[in-house]
C-alpha cells in the first residue's frame, strides 16, 4: 500500500486519540476492579461528543459479541454546534462507486490514482480534480486534502443532491388561546421573546413567518405588506378546515416586519377576556399542514391543555391513584394514531413540528408527542406552568425559547448511516422517520437532538482489522444552501473478549440500554424493562466471571472500563422515566422518556449521574485560557455524600439545574468574596445568582459556572442552598435525597450482590 492511514493498531489508537476522541487503550483498562473494595470511582473520559460507539473495540463475530453480553450501537449527535468545521468547496465530491461512502480519513490509497473504500473494500479511481490540494496549493498528494485529514467535514452539495430548489426558512407559530392558555399567561412572554429575537431567527431575505391561533375556532392572520394593520380571519368549521387566503398568511419576514411586530404586541391583549374553554388542536394542526405544504419548514405548537374538540381529541386517561404503583404503568403509548399520521404527512412534506406543552393538568403527552417524534421535531414540557405562581417554570420557558428561536436549523434533511461490510443497523432511536432500511427522514435538524442506533454483526469481520462508520446528513441550511455534513468513525476489530471489555464505553452503553428499556416499557411494560436493565448488569458480571477464570475472589468484579456500570444502571432505575413506587405523573414520565431518546449523551449522563465539584478550593491548576478569561477546571469528585463536608462549598451539576451547597462551617473568606455575605446566617433563603464581586475568587467561580452553562444547549437555573433553613427545605431535600448523593456505593454493592448471588 502506498499510503495506509494506520499500518498497525497502536498507531491507530494513538491517532484516534486526536481524531475521534477514543482514548488510547492502556494497560490499566485491562485490570479487573472489585467494586466491594474500590470506593473512589470516577467516570472515564473525555470522549468524542459527536459520534460514540458502545464498544470501542468491535468484536469480530456475533458469537463474541453475545459472549460479552454488551449491546453494540452508536450514539450520534450529527448537527451539533461545532467550533471548527472544515467546509469543502470543491465541485467534485469523491464517493465510492458501489456503496456511495464519502471519502474519509480512513481510506487507503493504493497509489496516487486509486483509493480503496474502507466500508466495502472496492477500489475506486481518484478524479483529476482531487489531485490538486487547494489548502497547500500542491499537486499529487490527495491524502493531504481536508476531506482526508478531518473526520468531520461539510460538503457543499451540487444540484444532484436536490429534489427541488432549496427551500427558504419558513416558521409557523400555532398558539393556543383558550381560557386556560390566557390563565397560564404564556402568550405575553412568548410574544415578548419573539419580538426580541425576530432579527435573530435563522434565515435570509427569503425567510417567512406565519401565525395561527386557535381555541374552538381557528384564527388566521393576514400580514400582507401594505395593510395598515394585521387582519384576523376566523374559520369556525373545524371539521372541514380550509385556508381562507393563499398568499397572505405566510409572509416574507423582511417585508412585513412592522405588521408582524404589531401583531405580536397586540396578541396578548386580544384574547385577554376570552371565555372559550375548548381546544381544537387537531383541526389547527390540519390547517397548519395545509399552510406549510407548498414549502415545508418548522411549525411550533404551543398547547396548554388536552385537545377537546374536533379531530384528534383526547380523553383524560391518567388514573391519579396509579401514580405510585409498582406494577406496569398504563397508557405510555398513544391513544390514537391521528398525531402519528399527521407527523408522517408532515415528514413527507418536509414540515417539522415542535411541541411546547405548558399545562397544569394531564394532557396525554404520550399521544401529543407523536407529532414531533416522527417529524423530527422536539418536545418541551413545562408542568404546572403559570406566569405568577410558578416563576421557575416561567424562567425556564423564557430561556428555552431564546435558545429555540435563535439556534441553527436545517431543513428537508435526510441522514444515512453506513457501516463496514458485515455490520448492519437494525433499530433506530430518536425523533426521526425511518423511510427505508438505512435512510432516515428528518424534516428539521436542530443542534440539540441526538440519535442512537443498534447494530448487529451479520458476517464475521475477519477481512479487516478496522470497522468504520459514516453518518452523512444532507440538509438545507437556513440560508438556502444545500450541505452535506459527514462524520466518520473508525474503530479496531478485536478477537479477544478481554479486549472487548477493555474498550467498552460505559456511558454510551448505559444510554443505549436506557433507549432500549424505554422501548421495552412501552411495548411490554415497565417492570419488564426494569428487570431487563438489572439483568444487563447481572449478565455482564456473570460473563466476566466466566471469561476471566483466574479470579477466585468474592465480591463484585467488573472490567475496569465498566466499573461504574452498576451505579449508572441504579441511577437509571431511579429516573422519572423508569421508576416505580414513587408518585410520578404520567405526563412527566412520558416527557422524561422523550428526553432520554433525544438528549445528547453528556447531558443525559449529567441528568443520571451529576457532576460534583468542590468550589471553595478552586485553583488555577489545569485551568483553561479562553478569550482572555481563565476558566478553572476543578477536579470531578466521586459522587457520594462521603465527599461532602461542612467546611466546604460544593457544586452539583445535574444537567438541568445547578446546586451550590454551602456547608455550615464554610470559610468566611469564601462567603464574603464569592457570595457577598458576612456570615453563614445572612445567606438569603433563595439565592439564584452568584453576585458579581470584584475578587479573583468570584471571577474564577463565575468563569467556571459560565463555562459549564455554555457547554450545554439550554442554560439551567442555579440555586444556592444551605443547611436546613425552612424556605429552602425543598431544595435541600432534593439535593440530599437525589438518587446520587446517598451512600450509593454501598447501595449498589448490596443491591447487586443480592441479585447476583440470587441468580448465579
Amino acid at each position: 500500500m502506498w499510503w495506509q492511514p494506520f499500518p498497525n493498531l497502536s498507531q491507530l489508537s494513538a491517532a484516534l486519540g486526536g481524531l475521534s476522541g477514543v482514548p488510547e487503550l492502556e494497560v490499566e483498562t485491562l485490570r479487573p476492579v472489585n467494586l466491594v473494595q474500590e470506593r473512589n470511582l470516577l467516570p472515564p473520559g473525555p470522549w468524542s461528543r459527536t459520534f460514540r460507539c458502545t464498544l470501542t473495540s468491535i468484536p469480530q463475530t456475533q458469537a463474541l459479541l453475545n459472549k460479552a453480553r454488551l449491546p453494540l450501537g452508536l450514539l450520534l449527535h450529527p448537527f451539533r454546534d461545532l467550533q471548527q468545521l472544515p467546509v469543502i468547496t470543491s465541485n467534485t465530491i469523491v464517493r465510492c462507486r458501489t456503496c456511495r461512502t464519502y471519502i474519509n480519513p480512513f481510506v487507503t490509497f493504493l497509489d496516487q490514482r486509486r483509493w480503496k473504500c474502507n466500508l466495502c473494500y472496492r477500489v475506486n479511481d481518484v478524479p483529476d480534480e482531487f489531485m490538486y490540494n487547494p489548502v497547500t496549493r500542491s499537486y499529487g498528494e490527495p491524502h493531504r486534502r481536508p476531506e482526508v485529514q478531518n473526520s468531520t467535514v461539510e460538503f457543499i452539495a451540487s444540484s444532484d443532491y436536490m429534489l427541488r430548489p432549496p427551500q427558504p426558512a419558513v416558521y409557523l407559530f400555532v398558539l393556543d388561546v383558550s381560557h386556560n392558555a390566557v390563565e397560564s399567561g404564556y402568550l405575553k412572554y412568548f410574544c415578548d421573546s419573539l419580538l426580541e429575537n425576530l432579527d435573530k431567527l435563522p434565515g435570509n431575505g427569503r425567510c417567512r413567518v406565519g401565525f395561527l391561533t386557535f381555541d374552538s375556532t381557528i384564527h388566521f392572520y393576514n400580514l400582507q405588506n401594505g395593510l395598515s394593520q394585521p387582519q384576523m380571519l376566523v374559520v369556525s368549521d373545524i371539521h372541514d378546515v380550509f385556508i381562507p387566503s393563499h398568499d397572505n398568511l405566510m409572509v416574507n419576514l423582511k417585508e412585513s416586519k412592522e405588521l408582524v411586530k404589531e401583531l405580536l404586541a397586540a396578541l396578548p391583549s386580544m384574547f385577554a377576556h376570552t371565555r372559550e374553554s375548548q381546544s381544537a388542536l387537531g383541526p389547527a394542526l390540519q390547517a397548519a399542514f395545509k399552510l406549510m405544504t407548498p414549502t415545508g419548514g418548522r411549525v411550533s405548537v404551543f398547547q396548554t391543555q388536552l385537545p377537546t374538540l374536533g379531530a384528534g381529541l383526547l380523553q383524560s386517561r391518567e388514573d391519579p391513584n396509579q401514580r405510585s404503583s409498582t406494577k406496569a404503568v398504563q397508557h405510555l403509548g398513544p391513544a390514537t394514531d391521528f398525531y402519528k399520521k399527521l407527523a408522517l404527512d408532515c415528514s413527507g412534506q418536509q414540515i417539522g413540528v415542535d411541541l411546547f406543552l405548558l399545562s397544569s393538568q394531564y394532557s396525554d403527552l404520550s399521544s401529543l408527542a407523536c407529532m414531533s417524534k416522527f417529524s423530527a421535531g422536539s418536545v418541551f414540557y413545562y408542568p404546572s406552568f403559570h406566569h405568577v405562581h410558578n416563576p421557575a417554570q416561567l424562567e425556564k420557558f423564557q430561556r428555552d425559547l431564546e435558545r429555540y428561536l435563535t439556534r441553527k436549523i436545517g431543513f428537508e434533511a435526510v441522514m444515512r448511516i453506513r457501516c463496514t461490510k458485515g455490520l448492519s443497523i437494525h433499530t433506530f432511536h430518536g425523533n426521526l422517520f425511518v423511510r427505508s432500511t438505512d435512510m432516515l427522514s428528518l424534516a428539521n435538524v436542530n443542534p440539540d437532538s441526538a440519535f442512537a442506533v443498534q447494530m448487529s454483526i451479520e458476517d464475521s469481520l475477519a477481512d479487516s482489522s478496522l470497522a468504520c462508520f459514516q453518518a452523512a446528513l444532507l440538509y438545507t441550511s437556513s440560508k438556502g444552501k444545500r450541505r452535506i455534513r459527514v462524520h466518520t468513525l473508525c474503530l479496531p476489530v478485536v478477537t479477544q473478549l478481554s479486549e472487548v471489555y477493555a474498550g467498552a464505553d460505559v456511558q454510551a452503553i448505559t444510554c443505549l440500554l436506557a433507549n432500549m428499556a424505554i422501548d421495552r416499557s412501552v411495548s411490554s411494560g415497565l417492570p419488564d424493562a426494569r428487570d431487563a436493565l438489572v439483568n444487563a448488569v447481572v449478565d455482564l458480571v456473570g460473563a466476566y466471571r466466566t471469561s476471566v477464570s483466574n479470579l477466585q475472589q468474592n465480591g463484585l468484579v467488573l472490567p475496569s472500563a465498566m466499573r461504574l456500570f452498576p451505579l449508572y444502571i441504579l441511577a437509571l432505575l431511579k429516573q422519572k422515566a423508569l421508576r416505580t413506587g414513587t408518585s410520578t405523573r404520567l405526563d412527566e414520565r412520558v416527557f422524561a422518556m422523550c428526553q432520554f431518546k433525544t438528549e445528547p449523551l453528556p447531558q443525559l449522563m449529567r441528568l443520571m449521574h451529576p457532576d460534583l465539584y468542590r468550589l471553595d478550593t478552586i485553583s488555577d491548576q489545569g485551568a483553561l485560557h479562553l478569550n482572555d478569561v481563565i476558566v478553572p477546571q476543578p477536579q470531578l469528585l466521586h459522587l457520594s455524600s462521603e465527599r461532602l463536608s461542612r467546611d466546604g462549598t460544593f457544586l452539583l451539576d445535574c444537567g438541568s439545574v445547578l446546586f451550590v451547597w454551602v456547608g455550615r462551617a464554610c470559610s468566611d473568606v469564601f462567603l464574603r468574596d464569592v457570595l457577598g455575605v458576612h456570615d453563614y446566617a445572612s445567606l438569603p433563603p433563595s439565592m439564584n445568582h452568584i453576585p458579581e464581586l470584584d475578587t479573583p475568587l468570584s471571577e474564577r467561580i463565575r468563569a467556571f459556572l459560565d463555562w459549564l452553562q455554555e457547554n450545554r444547549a439550554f442554560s439551567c437555573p442555579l440555586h444556592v442552598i444551605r443547611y436546613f433553613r425552612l424556605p429552602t427545605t425543598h431544595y435541600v431535600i432534593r439535593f440530599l435525597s437525589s438518587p446520587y448523593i446517598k451512600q450509593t456505593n454501598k447501595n449498589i454493592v448490596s443491591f447487586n450482590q443480592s441479585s447476583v448471588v440470587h441468580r448465579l
Partner: protein
Amino acid sequence: KPVFGFVFSSHLCLSSLIITLSDLECDYINARACCSKLNKWVIPEMIGQCLSTMLMLVSMHWFIFLLNFPVAVWNIYRYVKVPMGNMGVFDPTEIHNRGQLKSHMKESMIKLGYHLLCFFIYLYR
C-alpha cells in the same frame, strides 16, 4: 370443492404480501404505501381464514380443521394485539425498526408453507 377456492385465494393473498414486503426491502416503494397496501389485506385474510376453518368444522373434516385452527387464532391474536397508537398491523413508523420487516417476511413464508401443506392434503384426500 369450495375449499380449494379458499386455499387458492389465500395463496394469492400471501404471495402479494410477500412481494410487497420484498419491494419495501429493495426500496421500490416507500413505507407508507407498503403498509397501507398490506393493512388492506389483513382483515380479508382473517375473515377468509376463519370462514374456511368454520367450513371444515361444519363439514366435519376434523383433521383439516385442527390444521387450520391455529392459523386462524394467530391471525385474530395479531389483529387484536395492535397497540392503540399504531396504524394497523403494519405500521410505517415501526416497520423498519427492530427487524420487523424480517419477522413479517418470515411469518408470511411460514403461512405460505402451511397453506401449501394443507393444499397437498386436500389433493390427496
